[in-house]
């Protein structure tokens, strides 16, 4: 029977051996090529190609705007832009998290290659969805400026995106390793995200939430991330510091823990796939 203490020592030895083999340059190349492969596959044989990055959110925008203008009017200034920003941010979050959850199971063949860093796979999904987000951003920005909004402090945008990236990665690493063991994780996540859509101020404003429920509502990190985007893109001001920094700190901690759990469980992946 292997001794527990000895087990940890062995695990450390193995990790050390891989640190020697790990090459940052290779990891970057790998990320680059897998993201470009992902994008190429998605668009190679489609009629509209890259235009889909924009069309999808625009179509969603159209539907929601019509509903909330004619059917259930909400009193929100520049509702179209308000809605568009929400949809773009949420789409990046949702498609990344859903896609990344399945990335290990989907790429079983790659995991079996010697020296392949499985940890890069969730990042590939998040990055390729980021691509669509970035493609649509200028449209949002242009529309915002044309409507007479001041879009100041644009340098904050990459920072907010980094925070969202970190948060998405954190939760993705957790569900990706969970999905290998329990194959309905992605399915359950789908339901969670469906509900989550209504728990983030995409098509309504935070102010509409009853004061009693506000503290609980504000526990959702995506609320603050979205508010930060809106502050920069629509009001032209700086986002609220405290919530953003808290979310950033939370994401950092979550990410470290999630990567640790992922790496530890990744040794058993091949057995489960």
């Amino acid at each position, binding site marked *: 029977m292997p001794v527990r203490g000895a087990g940890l020592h062995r695990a450390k030895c193995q990790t050390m051996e891989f640190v020697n083999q790990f090459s940052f340059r290779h990891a970057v190349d790998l990320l680059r090529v897998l993201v470009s492969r992902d994008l190429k596959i998605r668009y190679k044989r489609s009629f509209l190609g890259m235009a889909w990055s924009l069309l999808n959110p625009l179509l969603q925008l159209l539907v929601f705007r019509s509903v909330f203008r004619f059917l259930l009017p909400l009193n929100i200034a520049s509702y179209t832009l308000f809605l568009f920003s929400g949809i773009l941010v949420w789409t990046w979050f949702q498609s990344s998290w859903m896609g990344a959850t399945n990335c290990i199971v989907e790429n079983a063949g790659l995991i079996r290659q*010697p020296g392949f860093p499985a940890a890069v796979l969730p990042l590939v999904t998040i990055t390729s969805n980021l691509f669509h987000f970035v493609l649509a951003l200028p449209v949002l920005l242009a529309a915002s400026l044309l409507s007479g909004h001041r879009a100041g402090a644009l340098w904050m945008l990459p920072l907010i995106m980094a925070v969202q990236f970190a948060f998405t990665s954190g939760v993705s690493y957790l569900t990706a390793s969970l999905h290998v063991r329990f194959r309905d994780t992605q399915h359950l996540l789908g339901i969670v995200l469906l509900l989550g859509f209504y728990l983030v101020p995409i098509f309504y404003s935070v102010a509409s939430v009853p004061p009693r429920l506000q503290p609980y509502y504000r526990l959702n990190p995506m609320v603050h991330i979205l508010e930060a985007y809106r502050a920069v893109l629509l009001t032209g001001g700086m986002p609220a510091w405290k919530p953003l920094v808290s979310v950033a700190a939370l994401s950092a901690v979550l990410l470290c823990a999630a990567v640790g759990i992922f790496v530890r469980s990744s040794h058993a992946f091949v057995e489960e796939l």
Partner: protein
Amino acid sequence: MALAIEARQLGKRFRRYDPHRPWTFQEVVARGWRRGGPEYFWGLREIDLAIEAGTTVGVIGANGAGKSTLLRLLGGIGQPDEGSIKVHGRVSGLLSLGAGFHSDLTGRENVLVTGIIGGLTRAEVEREFDSIVDFAELRDAIDAPLRTYSSGMEMRLAFAVAIHVQSSVLLIDEVLAVGDLAFQRKCLNRILDLKARGVTIVLVSHDAATVATLCEEALWLESGRIVEHGPAPSVVNHYVAMMRARAQQRNEAETLSRTPGDRPPLRTSSGATLEVRRNRFGSLEMELIDVQLLDSYGSPTAEIVPGDCLNVEILYDAPGAIPRPVFGVTITGNGGRVCLDTSTDREDFTLPLIRNRGTISVRFEGLRLPAGLYHVDVGVYQQDWSYAYDYHYNSYPLRMRAEGAGCGAMEAARIIWRHESQDSGSRRLARVR
């Protein structure tokens, strides 16, 4: 010399497949989380290895011996449960070729993706690109989408990429070469090239001949443990001998299980009585209805002198058509010790489809055996030797008279098989030795 691979008391265990183990949250909720202690089995146990850089090691063993598990651990996939393993240098593999391929991308794009997945950096892939395409002989098709490739072209491309990953340790799982004969030779030459350059190669193979020729060392695994680790030719010989002996044991068990419980005893013209499960075994889909030992004049005999001729004449009956049965005649001595052994497949005398009655005979010319009592065992077997149709055991005695000086040899100058089918009236003859 520097060690490329070191393993000390390496062990890896696996969970036994448990159909009740929940694999979705839904099942956990429905069935409850039963902590019913998982059952494990050891895929590898107490493996000690010290392989020097530049050696080519062949890993052989029956299915389930742990060969692929060892290869995976060498590749860093999965962690050992016991002991330690250390591999020095970059590891690459000819494992799951074409894993990164996607049919919508062009060959060029796929090479880039697969090359980087295999361990090269982008710069290295671009540098080796022409060499890869030339090796795969796909210069014309490289910019076409992969879905237009034939499976042979795909395999060639996958192999070409994999073989260009410069590593210190190369792991090969069965697939040593792909494509047509000419391309296979190219693959082998490339591997020999790598050998010459000092790459350590670990090859898992079921082909004992390949291991014997290509590898310096061979590692024989059995149920997760090392049976033998040493110079390739000797380990391979031991392995092959053991496999043959096992196959024989399996055949005997199979024959016994197929022997019917009761049958009326068979009486031959020589006076032998054959009863099932006593001295007669086999499924009896085809029967040997008469066996005679004849001397050189064709008269029945039970005693010969050294140098004499012995004819074993077998009359068979196959009510249903039997494809390519194999006849075997064995002369056994005390305690069933095999003294002389011949069969129609070993002597390359393949029989066609056998139907109805016929005679098959084997003639031992110049038979020499030490003086004593022997038995002639005859049998007809299924074409793969998996079991016997009819086997007569210790039923036909043969005495070898002593003459002159004691004869130590056991041999026959010539062995000739002859087949005469009553069905088609055809005759066939084969002379051996």
